[in-house]
Structure formats: C-alpha cells, structure tokens
C-alpha cells in the first residue's frame, strides 16, 4: 500500500478535567456517544485549581501540541472558589506563554458542567481543529524528549 505523504497532522492534546464537572461532562459526552477526536487525552484532577502551570509547561516540553483546562462554571465550583484561582493563574500563564511566542490558541480554559456533554464534545472538536491549524508545537518542545 502506498503511504499517504500528505497525511494530516494529528496534534497531541492534553486535557485536564476537574473531577466534579468537566470529567463528568466528558463522561456524559461518552454516554451520549458524542464524538470528539482521539487526539484528546484526559487527565483527571480533583479541581481545575489543582493544575499547576508546571504541568502545562511539562506537557508542552514533552511534545503536546495543545493543552486545555476544563473546570466548573465560575460560581459553581465544587470547592466554592477553585476555578477562580484557575482563571487568574491561567491568565498569567497564558500571557507568559504569549511572551514566549507560544500561540494563544494552543492553550485554553473552558468551563464545562457535568450536564454539558454536548459542550464538552463540541469544545474538544473545535480545540483540536484550532490546534491542527497551528501545526506541531516547536517552541517549547524539548527535542530530547521526542520519541524516536
């Protein structure tokens, strides 16, 4: 069989999802059989505020092409205020990434409730498309980490 040289770029996307809303939302999109690409790999965290900016930098360093962080809607955090911390921290981190020349569209914070399976799938589809357009992450990738 001939190898298709124009094979479409498949980005690697890491999604951090809070256990109470977004992870449940992701489960719900599964229960409702709402498709989104396999590019997205979810890591469960108790709250979006558990996500240390270091995790995101690490993901980029190790070759992720996009990182998305999902939490409960503002005001609905299971831990009352965790997502507010997230919002502030990520604003700071993203502006730093901006400064480093990392495209803004490689990162995103999205609020997805446990009832929003459809929104979760739509968000992932849209984010994957956006990252696809940007092509592979080169700026932050540590080439020594690249798989052989």
């Amino acid at each position, binding site marked *: 069989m001939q190898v298709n040289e124009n094979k479409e770029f498949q980005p690697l996307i890491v999604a951090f999802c809070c256990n109470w809303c977004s992870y449940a939302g992701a489960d719900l*999109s599964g229960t409702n059989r709402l498709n989104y690409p396999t590019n997205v790999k979810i890591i469960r*965290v108790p709250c979006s505020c*558990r996500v240390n900016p270091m995790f995101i930098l690490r993901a980029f360093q190790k070759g992720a092409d996009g990182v998305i962080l999902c939490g409960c809607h503002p005001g609905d955090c299971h831990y009352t205020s965790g997502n507010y911390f997230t919002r502030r*921290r990520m604003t700071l981190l993203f502006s730093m990434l901006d400064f480093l020349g990392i495209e803004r569209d490689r990162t995103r914070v999205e609020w997805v409730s446990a009832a929003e399976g459809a929104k979760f799938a739509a968000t992932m589809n849209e984010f994957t498309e956006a990252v696809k357009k940007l092509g592979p992450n080169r700026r932050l990738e540590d080439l020594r980490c690249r798989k052989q």
Partner: protein
Amino acid sequence: MQRIGVFVCHCGTNIAATVDVKAVAEALSHEPGVVISQEYQYMCSEAGQNLVKDAIKEYGLTGVVVCSCSPRMHENTFRKAASSAGLNPYLVEIANIREQCSWIHKDIATATEKAVILGKAAIAKVHLNTPLTAGESPVAKRALVIGGGIAGIQTALDIAEAGFEVDIVEKEATIGGKMAQIDKTFPTLDCAACILTPKMVEASQNEKITIHSYSEVSAVKGFVGNFTATIKKKKRFVDETKCTGCGLCTEACPMKKVPNAFNLGLDNRSAIYIPFAQAVPKVATIDPNYCLKLRKGDVNDKVCGKCAEACTVGAINYHQQDEYIEQKYGAIVVATGFNPIKLDKYDEFAYNQCPDVVTSLELERLMNAAGPNGGTLLRPSDKTHPHKIVFVQCVGSRCDDSKGKPYCSKICCMYTAKHAMLIREKYPDTEVYVFYIDVRTPGKNFDEFYRRAVEQYNVHYIKGMVGKVTPKADGTIDVQASDLLSNEQLHIDADMVVLATAIEPDKTARPLATMLTTQMDTNDFFTEAHAKLRPVESATAGIFLSGACQGPKDIPETVAQASAAASKAIGLLVKDSITCNPCVAHSNELMCNGCSACEKVCPYGAITYQDKEFRMPDRTTAIRRVAGVNPAVCQGCGACTVACPSGAMDLNGFSNSQIMAEVDAICK
C-alpha cells in the same frame, strides 16, 4: 520493585467493539513493573473482581490498573475488591477507556492506540501511588427535598416516617405541584385532589417535615452527608406565622383582574391570593406585579392597603424582605417536576389565535369542580357547551430537535383516553375524536383503559394527524387532518380542540443541576447514576432523584420513584458517619517556609500554622513557622498545592509527581 497488575475490561461489546482489548492488554504487559496483564469480559462482575483479587494474592501486587469504564462508575468497586484481597484500596487506578474512549471514537486502530496511552498513564501514576487510609465524617441527619409536588411530598413523608427531619422547598405559594391541578387520575378515575390533598395535609402536620413554600434553594455547598444549603424565602408580604388563611384579604383586594396561574390564566384572581382552597400552607401571598400598593414603588404611600385593613390578625407586611436560611443536610432529593412546553412553534393548531384551542392541562382545569367553570365543561370563548371535541396527540413530542422534544412524553395517550372517557360519560351528546400516531399504553390496566374509551364510550380514534386548525367566524373550528387508514383528508367542524402538549423539565432544573454538580441529559432531565441499576441516585453522591425531573412519568411511577429515592436517602441518613476522602493535602514541614500562601487560598480554613521546633544541621534547634492541614476539614481541591512557592504542599492521590507522570506517559 513495583509489581503491577493490569486488567482490561471488554464491558461486553461496549469497549471491545471499538477497542482491541487483547492488543491493549498485550501492549500494557510490557510496561515497566507490570507483572500481569489480562483482559476479561466484565471486570466489574464477581468473576472479574475475583481475577483482580486472585492476582493480588498470587503475584503479590503492589498496584492495580483497571482499564474500564469511568472511575465515577466503578472505582469504588475495584477499590473494595483490592481491599478485600489485602491491598490498600488507594493503590488502584482506573483508565477510562469506555466513556472517554470506546464510546466516543469509531475507528478501532486509533481508539486502541488511545486506550493503550490511557493505560500507560494510569500505570505511570500507580507507580507513585501511596497507601492511604480514609477517615470518617459525620452525617447530618436531615434531608432537603427540592420541589413540593407529589414526588417531593411522597419522598418527604417517607423520610420523615423513618424518623429524620426533612425540609421541602417549593417555589410556588403552595405545595401540590401539577397533581393539584389535575382533575381525575387514570386508570382508576379517582379525583386527584381527593388523594393528593390528604397527603399535603399529612406533610404539613408531620412534625419532622418543614415546608418552605414560596422559596428557592439559592446555594448548595459541601458533599455527601455534609451539605449546606441556603434557602431563599421569597418575600410574600404576609407573615406566615400569623396568617390563618381566612381569605378576608382576597375579598377585600380591589385588584381582581390578575390571571389566575393555578387555573392557567383561564380566569382571574385578586392580587393577594391563596392559590386554591386546599393550599398548604394556607397562607396568602401578594403578587407584587399586580398589587396597587407595591406597584407604586413606595409602600409608605397611602395607596390602597385594603388587605391590611381587612386582616384581623395583622399578618400583612408590605415591608417584608427576602429571608435566607442556612441549613445542614446529609442528603438532597431533587423533585423539580415538569411543565407543558410553550406552543409558539405549533401555531398551525391556532393555539395563540383561538381560545377554544387548549392544552390538556388547561382542559383539566376546565373540567375541575374547583376550576373556572365550577366543573362544567364550557368553551373558554363563549361559555357554551362544546358538542364536538378533537384531541390531537403528540403535539411537540417525538419531534425533530429543531421543532420540539425528541422523546415521547409518555403520559399523553393515557390522559387523553381519560379526558375522552370523562367527557363522553358526563356529556353523552358530545362527539369526541382523537387523532393519534400510535396509542402507547404500557402499564398495568392501561391498555384495557384505552380499549374502554373506544369500545364502551365510543370515542373515535383516528390514526392520523391534524395538519391545520382554522377558527371560523361562526365560532366553530375547522380541523383539517389525515385519516391514514381510510386514506382521506378529513374536515371536522369542532367546537373545541385539545392539544396533548409535550412535557419538559422545569426551567429551574438546569441551574439547580449546576449548583448540585449533577448531570443532565440534552433535554434537561437529570441523569441517573445508572440507567438500570441506580435509577434514583444521581452520579453525585448524596443527591437523589424523584419524579419527572428524571424523565416523563405518570403519578404511580412518580410515587414509586419518590419512595425509592426516599429509601436511598434514608440509607444514607441512618449512618452516623461516612468514610471521608483520604485524598487530602499535606505539607512537607521541612520544605515549608511559612509564607501563608496556602492558608490564604484554602476555601475551608483547613490550613493552620504553628511554630515547631526543628533540628538544624549543626545540631542547633530552630523554631520555624510551618503549615499543617486538618485532614477532616480539607476537601482535597488542591488549590494550596499550586499556591505553595516552595513545593511543600502536595495532595494525596493527585500528587505533583503523579500528575507529572501521567503527563509524561501521555506525551511520550
């Protein structure tokens, strides 16, 4: 050296159809530390769990990874299994290859590849898991029931019966809900009020039950066994404790032209009102949108004030404000119910143009003895007796998403048969036609009931659908419809048309679901934890579902589910304590520099500082200020771990190194 066991579940074909489970097990067997990797049809079954238990014993496993459904589904099952085999339950990790892999992907190759990566991430994490011991937290012995319809009432009565305090929060001025508006019930045709109102009274007299009518839940915090809810008691401008429900104020009120919501606007009431005679609590409420005094904006103005003058006990209080009550609950039951949909998109049936085209719920009021016509069925337009009535089924149900509701509303076939029968019984000179697509009557004595309508009462059931309703100048209504069996288009000159309107969850359900962090489907019905096996629990621990908030239901089903939800809530409330989450934060005192950054972000006040004596390298001692976490108070959100500048704060079960390991495994 770690000894890890990997178990890949087929979940019948749920996983195996899209993920090559054998390949996953094979690929994961080569991961470092993995000593056994196997797949099985149903890991959650007893046989599946035994596989895990046996492997733990046989291989002396130090960690277990189960590649299966969501951890929200079976994490506990496998933790228990591990525990029973002598392995600390927190050494088990789940890779979610069903909800987040097989169910959302179609291509076997890429789905399998993804499942392997998710498995690798779980293995990487389990390498760093540490044994944890769960503490216990007390259960507040009180339940909150949101919604005071038949579902909420039944749930509250059952919980109270078991000896626990229950609060019912009802947004309307009275409990009773939709059932209070219904005339007769199928399939027995007994009067709804006769069976509901005693229950309402029972609820109000039960000393374990507190009814907050005209109230809403405005905030919910906490977790199973330990919720704190804020209840907003909306200002009704009447002191509930003083009002005797005598009704003098409603007679005195000069503003009589307020659409009566209880009768669906089919007649009018006064601005100060008691919804209906048997209302519970029987307390007046002022509608501020119509009250002459309150509309004025300045309550000190001399306008009106007739109700206050009429009240003999001084219950009227124009200065009343919203009141907020905070209360602790061990369990919460959602019973928010349903409403008929708006018919704006179906004006081919002329609902907005002709008063004699009514919804089925409006017909209930029109036929009810306490309704606008005192129980005589009269046309709303000219108050004459209708001689020909056409019923249209499935209005807004079974529709394409863009048009209406995709689901069957379930109750319409039966209540339409009931309406048809009642009309034929009471007014034998009235012809009744029912246009149906399918008559759906599964249920005890249901089909017999429908057959009775046809055979005994001679109701004309016509297979077909109404296409256009034309109100005519002479007051009759031309109903144009297809008769599919005789293959003709009919015109019926009707006096009334009744639309079996689809039902939908109450609008308050979605914001409530968000507040409770419970799941909902795309139609805004609450999602049960398991469609077959956990039908009355939500996926969020301590939140239970009662009645039509979970899906369309008739009264017997609602009551059955209400009692089931109550029994689940009671099962929780009888426990003195429940196991807490051991995944809490802890600080490494040697690394802590006492900066207080963690303390400031902790929403629970679980972090305190104390001065501790430390031995320094040169054998001196030093007093240092370090953070300590109270594990009983900490809920494990992890906000502190990110705030900590020195990396002293970490979270059990979701440690920095564990999450980093997952990131690395996914990105490898």
